[in-house]
């Protein structure tokens, strides 16, 4: 399948390029434009980005592989990044991960057959205060997870409802 940017994308890319004195720094934001359009940055998409920007393919490949947030293969519509780093692990991160795996019938690193969900086991996302937690498609955090909360989340996502931003209160330090 040949990938192509739409006219709007190209306009956006021109705007991004105008922000920098050179083309090279535009690689990151343009990769985002590509990922938002196609849902991933497979090698062919990387090639498209390189051609659009007039940069070496190898450079774009290097940048895309450096950052885990760029998906180098096709992913589900919603990517659930479940944190299993230390704080989440202690608060039951693995329980949550295994619950999601059982519920969706896939293992971490896989995508459901209907293409709705991918599950990934990730390292610290910097929300140790609200452990255990997960992140939906490089975006919203869902915190203080319980099995019920996960069930509700998956149900809502299946209906196309994205979770709301959660306002988290930091526990006040007692003096």
């Amino acid at each position, binding site marked *: 399948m040949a990938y192509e940017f739409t006219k709007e994308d190209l306009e956006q890319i021109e705007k991004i390029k105008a922000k920098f004195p050179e083309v090279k720094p535009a690689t990151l934001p343009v990769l985002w434009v590509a990922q938002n359009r196609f849902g991933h940055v497979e090698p062919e998409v990387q*090639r498209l980005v390189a051609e659009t920007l007039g940069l070496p393919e190898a450079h*774009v490949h290097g940048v895309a592989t450096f950052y885990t947030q760029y998906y180098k293969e096709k992913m589900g519509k919603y990517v659930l990044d479940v944190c299993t780093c230390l704080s989440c692990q202690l608060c039951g991160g693995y329980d949550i991960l295994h619950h999601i795996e059982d519920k969706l019938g896939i293992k971490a690193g896989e995508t459901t057959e209907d293409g709705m969900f991918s599950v990934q086991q990730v390292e610290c996302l910097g929300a140790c205060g609200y452990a255990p937690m997960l992140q939906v498609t490089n975006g919203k955090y869902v915190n203080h997870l319980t099995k019920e909360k996960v069930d509700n989340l998956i149900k809502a996502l299946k209906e196309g409802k994205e979770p709301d931003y959660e306002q988290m209160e930091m526990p006040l330090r007692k003096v």
Partner: protein
Amino acid sequence: MPEVFIDGKRFEYEGEQRLLQFILDNGMEIPFFCYHPSMSAPANCRQCMVKIGQPKKDRETGEFELDENGERKIVWFPKLQTACNTMIADGMVVLTQETDELVERAQKDTLEFILANHPLDCPICDQAGECPLQIQTYKYGPEGSRFEVKKVHKPKRVQLGPRVILDAERCINCTRCVRFTDEISKSHQLTIMQRGDKNYPVTAPGREFDDAYSLNTVDICPVGALTSADFRFKARVWEMNQTPSIDISNGKGCNIDLWTRDNLILRITPRYNEAVNDHWMPDIGREAYKLFNENRVQRPAQKLDDEQINSSWNNAFETLAEKIESTDKKEILFIGSPHASVEENYSLMTLANLLGAKTPVFTTNIIEGYGDGFLLDDDQAPNTNGCRLLGLEEKDAKSLKKEVKSAKLIVLLNDNLIDREVLEAGDLNDKFVAVFATNRTETSKVANILIPVTTAAEHAASYVNVDKRIQRTFPAKETKYTDRRLDIEMSEGRLDRYGTSFDNWVTEDNKVDCIPFWNFVSQLGERLGLKIELRNGREILDEISNKIPAFSGVSYEEMDVQSGISLGGKKETVKS
């Protein structure tokens, strides 16, 4: 003059200089991996750590502040600095691992980190013996590693391109290869993939590393991560010996080293020459090593009943001498060669002159559009300008054919005229053709008498490149009639020095039965009653420099000192 103090010693310097390069230039040493003098310094291996300080100056008077002992007060950088990307400044004080324990410790610990995931491949690694990582670990590294966990595994034997193979586990991510494709060859084919301990160099997915200069990355790789697909596992470095030479596959005349073992050339690597090729050479030039080993003409051969039959040297001299004597000198055509050295062409000229024949002719071997403006030139021959400066007559294919037609005896010096389609085999029918050749080719097939001559790897001779720079080779390979223990110009490797003829790794078979062209001409001259004294390249070039103004002042000594002499042509330096 601005000054800098390194390990308590005072040095003066001029202009902008990188600290690491300055230290190396002054004969001191600091370990490093990612730095390369011809490329940018990203300082990502962190190995060249030094302690740097600047003297404190009184802002009002501009005088150096002194302590109670009358020494300058030094303000040290709060942390160690990498020497490779630090520019020297006036008054700078530098402490290296020789004088500072912290620096020594830092370098040791950095090496421990670099080695954390480096496999213990050395016994089977091609780089062993010429590996900066190996050498510097011996010199500056820790005794052992504190990392007891399993090493990270990465792909091995990745065919990056047709000529380069990657072993990702050995890579220390110095990015020299990536910077080479970005800054020197400008093909931008490589990048570092992933990050952390998973990273290694790759091409873009689905692309090959087919850069025309790709094998230079193998040379500059400070570990055994990039190896040459061709040379891989062929020989250990310490078994070979290294002889300086000149690339004869292109007019650019890159300076090279020939690596020999048991009189076989096993690989060719570039040799630094700022005026010609810097540290680099094209991949195609490295394949020329096969010319020295394979398909060589051995022993003179004479054509009887359309078949070349091996003959003796005496027969070769007799036959050719008789032919020359019985032919009208006007009907002898001497064809020189831009593929042969200055000395060989001069010998041919001497013979022609003394016989009273016409001046030798030659045709250039230039492919328009072949060059790339870097180290590949349109000119496919190493000595086109040499022939011109000697005064050989330059002919194009058409007029050469005409000359051939009117000749009866043709003496052809090592030039594959039929292979490169200047002549056709039919043009040489009914002529007596004497071919002096190094390799068996379509051209050598038509010879009525075929006489083997030495290659650039077997004699010391000089070549004039496209920029009119005269450079010379050294004998690297013995012939049947030379002995490296008796020839002071030849280098001796470990096997050459300690091997005996009873060892099973030494054979006579690799010595080719051939003699230098000038020796043949001298002996032929003796037979013909001509006074020709051409003994070796050195003496011949002295004679040339006395006789031909274009070569005045040129000698082997001077060429060795200056690594080549520019013969009045435009001076060109390779800087990309």
